[in-house]
């Protein structure tokens, strides 16, 4: 029951195939490549901040370009494509259809990513990953900035196409015997996140066009010197990218929903509440965008409204945590690598969420806005929850994809190192933020506390780096030389898998 359903064949046949597993494989490879590229940039940043003064990065300009591309790469070129990879592999199988609804569209959506990645990486723009005007308009040097804008434009189109494909596949192509209430929760997660993408991304696409024309000087939407308002960009941007945060996290949760019941040898505690929470998140996610802009002189009323909107998203996320805990209750858990990642992911998800709740209180914005607290907070989400869930799921699907088993010991080492590293880096960064260290600074005054905590964080980052090296070695070696996996039940869990992989939809 391997997921690569066709015979071994030349690599170009995989590249130009439109079969969902092949496209999924391409997504997987490209997103992992960008994971390592972006991660190495992160190591560079941490090494630079290890001590005040210039360490390994020549000048501030280089540093600014590096953290910009680091953020852009890991969010747009690692997380989102990874979700699409898993979706491509599993969604058609889960809804028991022979392929994605629009295979060619699917391939197109993937093939938009490499050019976009090339644009972003060649350009190496120097405005932050949210290109705030007027900086991005009047002082960001081109052509890097314009290439970045084009790159993101392409990525936006690609993810909208992908989302469309998922929605149609899940809603229209599921097996007639299955009601929408029977598809696995992971399919639900892809459905809701795809819906978010289809609603949110177009706003950002429009904002990007305006940004470009502003840079060219033919319009002045966001350019104060030409009668525009920079804050309106912030609104457009965050209207897209706050929901986008949920787009990132929802598939990761869905993956945990696959892993945890499987390794607990129990069905999920409450399917309905899981579905409810997903839908809830995707709706409430749109009511909280402006909490990124408390400090830009919003009125008290606006702030209050958006704080309420932000807090409203918490119960939904909390229901997921409850679901996981309740599922593991009275279970017989086998702690293979995927399960370890999933459980670690839950713990970090909760702590990140707690930090977020504290941060959503309006007055605390005075202390934490744009400090390392924020950095620590969202990295705890992105690394601690999303990356953990994704990597766990990668281990989980490894035997099905390659037909071989990864090295369990190395996998566990990978998890333990990453967990320690993550806690070291991001919890320290929370405290660092409380000491008032701003984001995106290339150099900082030699304040003892700052130095100490930056060093802890840098060490943690190095630990994560090592673990990732282990991960890479493990993947490469096991993919080629790993011992053959029993592809019916690679983890020896005994239970049967509740969706038949080769199900064909008789109506097609």
């Amino acid at each position, binding site marked *: 029951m391997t997921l690569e359903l066709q015979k071994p064949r030349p690599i170009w046949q995989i590249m130009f195939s439109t079969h969902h597993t092949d496209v999924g494989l391409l997504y997987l490879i490209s997103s992992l490549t960008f994971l390592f590229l972006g991660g190495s940039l992160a190591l560079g940043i941490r090494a630079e901040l290890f001590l005040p003064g210039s360490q390994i990065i020549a000048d501030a300009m280089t540093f*600014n370009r590096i953290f910009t591309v680091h953020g852009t790469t890991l969010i747009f070129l690692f997380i989102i494509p990874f979700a699409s990879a898993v979706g491509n592999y599993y969604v058609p199988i889960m809804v028991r259809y022979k392929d994605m609804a629009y295979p060619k569209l699917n391939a197109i959506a993937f093939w938009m990513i490499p050019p976009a990645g090339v644009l972003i990486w060649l350009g190496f723009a120097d405005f932050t990953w949210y290109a705030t005007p007027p900086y991005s308009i009047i002082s960001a040097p081109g052509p890097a900035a314009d290439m970045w804008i084009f790159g993101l434009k392409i990525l936006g189109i690609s993810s909208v196409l992908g989302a469309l494909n998922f929605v149609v596949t899940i809603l229209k192509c599921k097996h007639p015997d299955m009601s929408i209430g029977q598809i696995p929760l992971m399919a639900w997660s892809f459905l809701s996140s795809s819906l978010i993408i289809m609603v949110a991304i177009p706003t950002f696409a429009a904002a990007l066009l305006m940004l470009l024309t502003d840079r060219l000087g033919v319009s002045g939407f966001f350019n104060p010197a030409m009668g525009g308002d920079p804050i309106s960009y912030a609104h457009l941007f965050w209207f897209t990218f706050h929901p986008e945060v949920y787009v990132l996290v929802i598939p990761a949760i869905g993956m945990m929903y696959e892993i945890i019941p499987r390794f607990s040898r129990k*069905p999920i505690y409450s*399917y309905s509440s899981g579905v409810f929470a997903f839908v809830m998140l995707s709706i409430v996610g749109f009511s909280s965008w402006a909490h990124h802009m408390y400090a830009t002189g919003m009125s008290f009323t606006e702030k*209050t409204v958006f704080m309420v909107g932000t807090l409203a998203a918490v119960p939904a996320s909390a*229901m997921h945590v409850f679901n996981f805990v309740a599922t593991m209750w009275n279970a017989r858990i086998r702690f293979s690598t995927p399960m370890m990642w999933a459980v670690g992911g839950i713990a970090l998800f909760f702590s990140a969420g707690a930090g977020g709740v504290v941060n959503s209180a*309006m007055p605390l914005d005075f202390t934490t*806005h744009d400090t390392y607290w924020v950095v620590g907070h969202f990295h705890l989400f992105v690394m601690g929850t999303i990356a953990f869930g994704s990597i766990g799921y990668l281990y989980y699907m490894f035997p099905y994809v390659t037909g071989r088993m990864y090295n369990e010991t190395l996998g566990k080492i990978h998890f333990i190192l990453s967990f320690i590293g993550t806690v070291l880096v991001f919890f320290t960064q929370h405290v660092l933020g409380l*000491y*008032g260290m*701003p984001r995106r600074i290339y150099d900082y005054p030699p304040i003892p506390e700052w130095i100490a905590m930056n060093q802890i964080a840098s060490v943690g980052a190095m630990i994560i780096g090592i673990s990732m090296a282990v991960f890479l070695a493990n993947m490469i070696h096991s993919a080629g030389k790993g011992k053959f996996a029993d592809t019916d039940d690679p983890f020896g869990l005994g239970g049967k898998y509740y969706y038949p992989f080769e199900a064909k939809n008789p109506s097609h």
Partner: protein
Amino acid sequence: MGGHSNWPEWIYVAVVIALMTWVGAEAWEAERLVEHVPADAETIIVTGQQWFWTFEHEDGTKEIGELHVEVGKAYKFEVMSKDVNHSFNIHDYVVLMDAIPGRVNTVWFAPDAVGEHDIQCREYCGLIHYNMRGTLYVEEPSH
């Protein structure tokens, strides 16, 4: 699914919602107090530009990179920017307000002890953002 009833989950959700309400109420009250600018606050016009701060007092005196204030008075900052977004921040006094070109944002504080504090820019503003720093000198009342 699973035919069993969900009452533990509903209790749990209720608790979460109660917590969130509490957080919201606390925050709302605090924000209301913080945002209330005292009537007799002195105005200081803060102008951010790449990559330094300019302060203009009510009596018209201008300072670059340094700000001298007196203990026991309330000061109202009118923060504005000449080029790109900055964020005016005195972390020791929990003062933070973005400097947005074309806008005037206000924030206030009342220093209560003599001392020196860092003023920094918290919003990414380009090449020398990391060094867009100033110093706040809190002094004894002159009169």
